[in-house]
């Protein structure tokens, strides 16, 4: 078990990779009451096509989310009820890029037991045909619930406009049809491919002695036999570089209309480490141009062009990258005009950039304050192959001169506009 110290943040953690490949990270917080543990796999909603050396697999959209639901069952007592018996709060989530199972527990007498329970229920899939069928209407109700939220509709609509085949175009949970098609065999196959310990990580924050925790984890894993891990590759979705639809308008029973201007970018040829740096740079650029740092921001508010809802998001990866601007009571086309003008005429002020860095430092420290959400952020980075602390260091040492180089990487020609309008009766 190695101790890694991060002096700038007054933080440290212990790391060990077990014989079966499971990566374990432990943050020791002696003055905390509660232990937090998160156990995850980089298997999220985007993985609906995978391949091994010999075979190609296709899955129905929503399979990762379905699997998460089913792992929460046990032959005798449901997982939630079993954790509740010892006072622990257990939950899970599936995103586009990972599935994570986590608990928190203040009663330290039960933490080791809870760790075993977490490892055990995630590492054994106990399902049958009846349980799979029973879950389908519940998941469909969950999807219906999210679909009624304007933000979900906005995001799904935008991704559908950007992508032809890439699974970002599907909701994380899939849709009614894809969920109905999911089979027991498909779930078992997915589980076998994506839940091998060598593919997973466990992150713990606890007042307990890290050596004691690690010993328990080792002994839990030593008891289990895992098949040899198949080497899995993401299959190609043959996604064209161009957006799927330039302009989309949808109606909904809402009062506040919403617009999106989204850019489909391509960083497939870049190394991951460069992509991370470019994304950090783009975030700085967007903050400098599209928040109150820019004096024009107040003008846009005064003129009613934007309101406080206006915002942006950037997500850069090897296989998909996008930049998105959204606003209320503004159409996608108007957003495009505003954004393009700022990007094309951008010039940056070094003093403001340095001020922005101070904000970034403040925000980075803030991440540590909520132990559970820090635990989740940390495991998400681990599963994505990103070094959480290195990322912060890159941002803190970011060179002002790089901004002008990075802004040129924003291709304004490959865009989609999405408008969500109130339905008129």
């Amino acid at each position, binding site marked *: 078990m190695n101790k890694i110290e991060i002096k700038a943040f007054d933080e440290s953690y212990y790391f060990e990779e077990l014989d079966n490949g499971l990566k374990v990270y432990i943050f020791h917080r002696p003055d905390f009451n509660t232990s937090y543990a998160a156990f995850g796999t980089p298997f999220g909603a985007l993985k609906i096509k995978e391949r091994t050396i010999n075979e190609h697999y296709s899955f129905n959209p929503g399979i990762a989310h379905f699997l998460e639901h089913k792992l929460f069952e046990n032959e005798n007592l449901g997982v939630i009820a079993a954790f*509740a018996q010892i006072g622990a709060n257990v939950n899970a989530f599936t995103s586009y890029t990972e599935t994570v199972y986590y608990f928190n527990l*203040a009663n330290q007498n039960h933490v080791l037991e809870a760790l075993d329970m977490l490892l055990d229920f995630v590492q054994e899939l106990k399902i049958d045909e009846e349980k799979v069928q*029973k879950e389908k209407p519940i998941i469909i109700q969950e999807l219906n619930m999210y679909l009624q939220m304007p933000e979900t509709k906005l995001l799904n609509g935008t991704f559908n406009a950007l992508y032809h085949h890439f699974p970002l175009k599907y909701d994380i949970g899939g849709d009614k049809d894809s969920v109905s098609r999911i089979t027991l065999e498909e779930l078992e196959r997915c589980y076998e491919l994506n839940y091998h310990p060598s593919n997973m990580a466990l992150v713990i924050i606890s007042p307990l002695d890290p050596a004691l925790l690690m010993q328990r984890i080792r002994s839990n894993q030593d008891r289990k036999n895992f098949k040899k891990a198949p080497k899995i590759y993401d299959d190609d979705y043959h996604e064209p570089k161009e957006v799927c639809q330039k302009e989309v308008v949808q109606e909904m029973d809402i*009062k506040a209309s919403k617009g999106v201007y989204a850019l489909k970018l391509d960083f497939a040829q870049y190394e991951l480490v460069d992509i991370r740096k470019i994304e950090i740079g783009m975030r700085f650029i967007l903050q400098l141009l599209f928040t109150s740092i820019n004096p024009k921001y107040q003008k846009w*508010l005064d003129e009613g062009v934007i309101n406080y809802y206006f915002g942006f998001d950037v997500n850069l990866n090897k296989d998909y990258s996008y930049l998105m601007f959204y606003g209320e009571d503004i159409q996608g086309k108007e957003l495009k005009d505003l954004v393009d003008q700022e990007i094309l005429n951008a010039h940056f002020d070094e003093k403001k950039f340095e001020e922005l860095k101070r904000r970034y*430092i403040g925000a980075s420290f803030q991440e540590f304050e909520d132990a559970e959400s820090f635990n989740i952020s940390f495991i998400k980075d681990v599963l994505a192959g990103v070094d959480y602390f290195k990322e912060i260091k890159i941002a803190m040492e970011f060179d002002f001169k790089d901004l002008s180089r990075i802004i040129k990487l924003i291709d304004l020609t490959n865009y989609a506009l999405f408008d969500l309008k109130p339905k008129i009766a």
Partner: protein
Amino acid sequence: MHIEGSKQEKFKLIHSSKFKHTYLSFDLYLPYSLIDLSNALIMPYILGQYANKYPSKEKMRAKKDELYAPSLSCKTSLRRDLIVISIDYKFLNPKYVSGVSFKDHISFLIDCLFEPYLDDNILKEIILNYQASVKRQLDKPEVYAFDRMLELVGQDTYLAYRKLDRSKEVASLSVESFFIFYKKLLERAECYLAMIGEFDDDAFATFLKRLNLDKRTHYARDRNAYDLKDRGEVIEERELSQSTLLMYYEFPLVDDFLKRVTYMLADGLFGALPSSLLFDDIREKRGLCYSIYSNLNFNDAGLYVFSALSYKDKDEAIKAVKSDLEYLISSTYVREHLDVAKEYYRNLLLSSNDYASSILAFNLKNMFLKRDISYDEYIACIDKVDAEMVVQALNELQLKIIYVLKGSRDE
């Protein structure tokens, strides 16, 4: 952790290095009769956003960045007959950065709190954004349904003040009316303050002095029960693909702490716990929905059950909620599951001690309710509750309305 407080328990200062930030929270209370609620509703758009020294977003942003992005936020909420303005200030402990001291933060806070800035242009911007925010919230079916249900069941009570859309009233506000309101708030509000972190008592004394806590009024609370009318089942429709079910129960006002804990456990067993009876029966056994839970509010002495489901299943769900409540009262369920509920709430309470904002909220509530309950005493109360007490609490729940927001595209 070193704790000190005022003799009259109007503030609590907790020295602690557990967190990397220092947190300061204070609540200001005023009765509806003294101020116009609409002015209070725009407070979150002003405090920490505009001050005489920083009269634009750009200037305020530059100052905050200079201080390593402290967070100064404000929230308006309603507690029966009182309007509550909750103010939170959170900043990175100066030892982690250079060039910023605790005094700098206190000066900034004083500038923002005692010298807020508002002009006609900013007010116009705030009104537009308030209205947009209301529309945005009501576009969410869950929020819309809850708002409608309270409006229907809460007529002629304080619940009626909770109506979300006050666009018209807010639109008629003026800069003058806001400053009249603000003066009253600063001078006449009942106020409680709590702080946790690394701070300098002497530097903080300047701020405490300006707040003048010891001379503040204590407003008498209205403790009359609402005694809501039974509104039966109300069905309304919107063009949605799913329906929302809300069932609102009233219970007698509870002041006694042990009884409050009893109600909390009853709510947990009924629908608030992740493994509650409603979850087990209606979601897991019957598969009628994905989401079902209950939630209680001691200020209003109300408990509601929420579910998002298909309209065709609503009758079965309503029947099941009613029969689950009956089952809790008449079977051995409470006796068999009470220990699990207790363990859950003990965990929740102890876990909350790892969050600075929860520690402050706990202390503020103690001061507001003029009680001095420690975490240990809270846990002792949880231990003391028995099954008979829980059943008695459940027996006191009276269903007042069943509100269904029918989705017209719900298959």
